[in-house]
């Protein structure tokens, strides 16, 4: 009976998905409960910030500059049709601060640092380092998982701010230096359009949410990976796919709450 078999398989998968979700939730709560050590021994967190934050700097800075330059170029071409090239500054700054900065920085962070975190923890598990810690009465969540989590959550808004700042610089280089949009109106229109609380702080809030989502997904996938070479590689792929989807979906929800009706 192939039909019955299929139905059975669907049911099995659904139960498995719910089971996994529950395990992930418990894992996330355990991370929060055992995060005391990552602040008491802050050097653990600082070490992880080096690997997640500092090592992602180059890709974030280069990507931010080029995204800003593209925005400047495309924005200029479109605004030129309406004779409002002077609004280029506000276009570049608003798109970066509200959306592109947090979202693209988080996507790059997920593929640069998130995948590395998953692979590292997955391999630690495969080589039984996690089990060894438990035998030595060291809590692996407090020692391995929580510092990485907080390092990611702290790094993410800083990376997003750097991305936006470099993006504005890139837009300035293309718009003002290369094309020749008036410098005064570029900055003054930008300052008139961008509100500190409404735009910049909401962008920072977004990047904190993305930081929590990306690091939680990466750490869980690593911790839950089957202890084989195949399992670790599958978990790494799942990290990138799931975090990217989570970022984009969360971004829609957050935008709907933050910027509606304004």
């Amino acid at each position, binding site marked *: 009976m192939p039909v019955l078999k299929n139905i059975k398989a669907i049911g099995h998968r659904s139960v498995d998905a719910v089971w996994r979700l529950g395990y992930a939730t418990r894992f996330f709560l355990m991370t929060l409960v055992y995060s005391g050590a990552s602040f008491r021994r802050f*050097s653990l967190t*600082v*070490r992880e*910030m*080096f690997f997640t*934050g*500092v090592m992602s*700097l180059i890709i974030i800075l280069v990507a931010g500059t080029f995204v800003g330059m593209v925005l400047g170029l495309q924005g200029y071409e479109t605004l030129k049709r309406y004779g409002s090239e002077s609004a280029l500054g506000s276009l570049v*700054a608003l798109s970066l*601060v509200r959306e592109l900065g947090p979202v693209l920085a988080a996507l790059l962070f997920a593929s640069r640092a998130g995948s590395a975190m998953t692979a590292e923890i997955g391999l630690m598990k495969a080589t039984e380092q996690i089990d060894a810690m438990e035998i030595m009465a060291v809590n692996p969540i407090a020692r391995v998982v929580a510092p990485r989590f907080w390092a990611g959550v702290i*790094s993410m*808004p*800083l*990376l997003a*701010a*750097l991305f*936006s*700042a*470099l993006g*504005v610089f890139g837009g300035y280089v293309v718009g003002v230096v290369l094309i020749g949009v008036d410098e005064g109106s570029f*900055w003054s229109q*930008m*300052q*008139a359009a*961008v*509100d*500190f609380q409404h*735009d*910049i702080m909401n962008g*920072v809030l977004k990047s904190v949410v993305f930081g929590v989502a990306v690091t939680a997904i990466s750490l869980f996938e690593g911790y839950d990976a089957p202890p084989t070479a195949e399992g670790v590689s599958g978990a790494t792929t799942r990290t990138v796919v799931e975090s990217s989807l989570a970022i984009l979906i969360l971004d829609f929800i957050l935008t709907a709450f933050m910027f509606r009706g*304004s």
Partner: protein
Amino acid sequence: MERTTLDLWVGAFVVAGIAALVILAMKVGNLSTYNVSDTYQLDAYFTNVGGLKPKASIKSAGVLVGRVTGISLDTNRYEAKVTMSIDQRYQFPKDTFASILTSGLLGEQYIGLSPGGDDKMLKNGDELKHTQSAMVLENMIGRFLYDKAAAGSNSK
């Protein structure tokens, strides 16, 4: 616990991130122009506010003197009530005239204040009695067409 080169890198990263935030706030955002001086509140009633939004600027002779803090519909009069906060440094006479203007052809709407000649000054919570509503483009075109039609029928 010793200091390591790793700490230096992380420290530089944190400093750069915070610096980027400060640059965003000061150079890109409007934090540097935030009004920290004292303000006083004024109300004005308009029959139509058009596209006026909260935080729109209030100008007198082209100089920024305050911001719109709230717009609501007064159901006693069925008129829009606009609350404004004006910089304490600028005092206006009682018969000041408030009108909703547009900067440029398609620009943002703002409130322009033209001072009258009264000796008494407006105080906190006072109401501006003389107002002029926003120009609605559809009404203007309608009136223009109507005038044209009237002129055409008169000349016959």
